[in-house]
């Protein structure tokens, strides 16, 4: 790759504000080319907002984001050409068939016509959707939709793949396939950034993880390094240590309140 940049993803002091609410605060991050990076955080921590800014669906209130050397705001088309994206709840065109959906996305990402058919078939076969390729997407289950969205994100062979909660809705087989695909992509030199709640996935797959808490990037390092730096044995303990301990206490207090007045179901 002659035009390979130093870093695949660069966030430089990125913030996002919705009205008076600061969803992401001064986030700076570099993801290396060929790295599998995990973004960890509780619900509402700012993971999805961060990913949406990276893929150009939200505009940063301040700061810059560069993907494969291209600014996502000022050079959006080049930046978007380099990426594939699967949201946490992919909403696809229900009235298209699986194959039509992939063909549509292939056109949208300017995949040459002569390569489309073979890529579509390989992807459908890989994710076990080949026999459902001519069914309307509205008839797909949640997991099948997730897999089809992943096929769509890979159709143009992106350099960077963004996956927002990719294992949600997948059965164990699908989840395993996804993990294999992510590792395969990483081994091929692609960059993968995923957000997840499943800490085992991050622990097992990611080269590095970033822990997001209330819109701030609290820590970035490899899972092993994070464990040793905090002295915790498991990544879950590291995560709670950095983000959620007080919330656990609150939850325990709440349980005590319910038990106290007999309101617990």
């Amino acid at each position, binding site marked *: 790759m002659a035009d390979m940049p130093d870093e695949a993803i660069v966030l430089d002091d990125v913030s996002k504000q919705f009205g008076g609410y600061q969803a992401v605060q001064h986030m700076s991050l570099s993801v290396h080319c060929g790295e599998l990076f995990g973004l960890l955080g509780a619900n509402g921590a700012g993971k999805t907002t961060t990913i949406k800014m990276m893929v150009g669906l939200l505009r940063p209130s301040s700061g810059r984001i560069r993907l494969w050397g291209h600014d996502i705001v000022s050079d959006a088309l080049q930046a978007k050409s380099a990426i594939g994206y699967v949201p946490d709840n992919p909403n696809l065109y229900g009235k298209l068939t699986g194959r*039509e959906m992939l063909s549509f996305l292939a056109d949208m*990402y300017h995949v040459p016509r002569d390569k489309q058919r073979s890529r579509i078939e390989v992807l459908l076969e890989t994710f076990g959707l080949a026999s459902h390729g001519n069914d309307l997407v509205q008839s797909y289950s949640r997991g099948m939709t997730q897999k089809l969205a992943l096929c769509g994100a890979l159709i143009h062979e992106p350099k960077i793949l963004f996956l927002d909660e990719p294992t949600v809705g997948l059965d164990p087989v699908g989840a395993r396939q996804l993990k294999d695909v992510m590792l395969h992509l990483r081994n091929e030199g692609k960059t993968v950034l995923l957000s997840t709640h499943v800490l085992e996935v991050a622990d097992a797959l990611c080269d590095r993880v970033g822990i997001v808490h209330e819109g701030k990037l609290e820590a970035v390092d490899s899972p092993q390094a994070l464990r040793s730096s905090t002295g915790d044995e498991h990544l879950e303990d590291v995560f709670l240590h950095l983000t959620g301990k007080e919330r656990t206490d609150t939850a325990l207090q709440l349980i005590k309140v319910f038990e106290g007045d007999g309101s617990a179901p």
Partner: protein
Amino acid sequence: MTGVGLQMQLLARRGQMAWNTMFHGSRTKRIAACSLIGFGILGELAFFSVAGFVVSFQKLHITPSFVAGLLTLVTMFTAATAITFALSSLYFSRDLDLLRSIPMAAHHIIWHRVLVQWCVGMGLGVVVSSPFVLGAVVYHRAWSAIPILILAIGAVVLLTFSIMTALTVVLLRIVPARWVKNAGAIVVVGTGTVVAGLNVVLRISSFTGGAGLATVSVTPFSHTPLSASWSPIAWASRAIADAFAGSVGSGLLWLLPTVAVSIGVTFLCIRGAEQVYVEGYERNASAGNTGSKRRMRVNAFGARPRIWKTIGIKDFIEIRRDASLLAMLILPLIMFGLYVGVAAPPIPVLHTTWLAPLFVASSTSLFTAAGLALRGIGGEGGRLWLIKASPNPVRSVIAAKFVIGLVVTAILSAILLWVGMVRHALTVPGVVEATVLLIGIISGLVGIATGLGAMWPRLDWTDPRRAVSIWLTLAFLGIATLYLAIAFVVIGMPFVLNIPLPWGTYLAYIGVYVWAAVVGGSFMTVGAARYALREV
């Protein structure tokens, strides 16, 4: 909590949501909402003065048959809208799973939906009709008629809503599960066709001087079965007419059975439909999971991937496979087709045979554009991320929406134009002239629709027919009507000024195309700018 208390609670929450939609959020939004209301009130006052003048000028006699005609018109309109509302609110609304999961009987849900529709319908009715009504009240000095009028119309509207809601619920229980999603569309098209057909037929039988749009009458339904003496419409008409004539007591006597029947029938319909609704809802929910095998269509998007073509064909496939969207496009065509199928005399002063069909075809395109181009971006809904995340310039996306809107609208309207011209003295030059003008007019209209739709798309829908808010649709209809009116003034000017042919026609062409480019282009430019900034 009693049933009445529960309904009040639900209505209050609905009102709160409407309030939040308008006023909750940024200061700019609140200022915009207040400005809109202010302009609305000013518009109503201006309209009132004009309408009051017109009513008094015509020395309108408010007879029972006159009122019956208007009420029948209201009833038919209500019947058609009630079906789509029942479908959306009882089967596709996002909050249904929540409502059905809380301990509340299903008939309360139906009651709630009927009452919401009744409140919205009455509110819109008050906004639209109050200038005329107040004009008539002032002219007849019949202030006591106002409460009787409101109650009588409210009773008739409630009766129509409840009957049509019950019919829709029963229909969706009867049809095979795989047709459930399409059945509503078929009913809507059927009802619209019947309403338009009845209108035309009754006009032909009522008037000897031709029919269709060229014949203007304010009482087209004054002698229909719906306004016969056994009908609550007739009772309501007598109540209103008597009240306007000063006989408030007599008006009240006619009002009482109207209200009683309305409430009674509503109770019967809703309670009777409860179990059927529960079963139909479950069938509808499961029908969404059935799929159908389709022939592989990898090449459906053409030999060379061009973005506007790719998006356009995707939209076309979606519409073709969704009966409810197809119905939105076909219905205006059928309704206006019935009108133009009936011969109307040409307007002699302009020496053209195509002006009337051109007017009808352009008016139809108003509704087709509202159903297609206006919902171009909004129609993407939660799928807009697919397009926004792709590496394509904004202008390609907006162009795609414009092209698909223009092509479909132009084809449908041109068919109507040519049908209309066949019914008149048809000449080849006339057809060409009118078609070229029609395409010019429509391009501006579709430009307005595409631009407005890109400015304020509604992306959180679950039913594709709700991809555009009612307010945006009304705004578009208002703006587009003004655009059409000016376009026809532009077309008519060379003829009125006696500019000789063919120069008059050429001037009309230039005028219309410049007008379309300026207006449509402006809306699309602003729409594209807003779309570029939209976050999903």
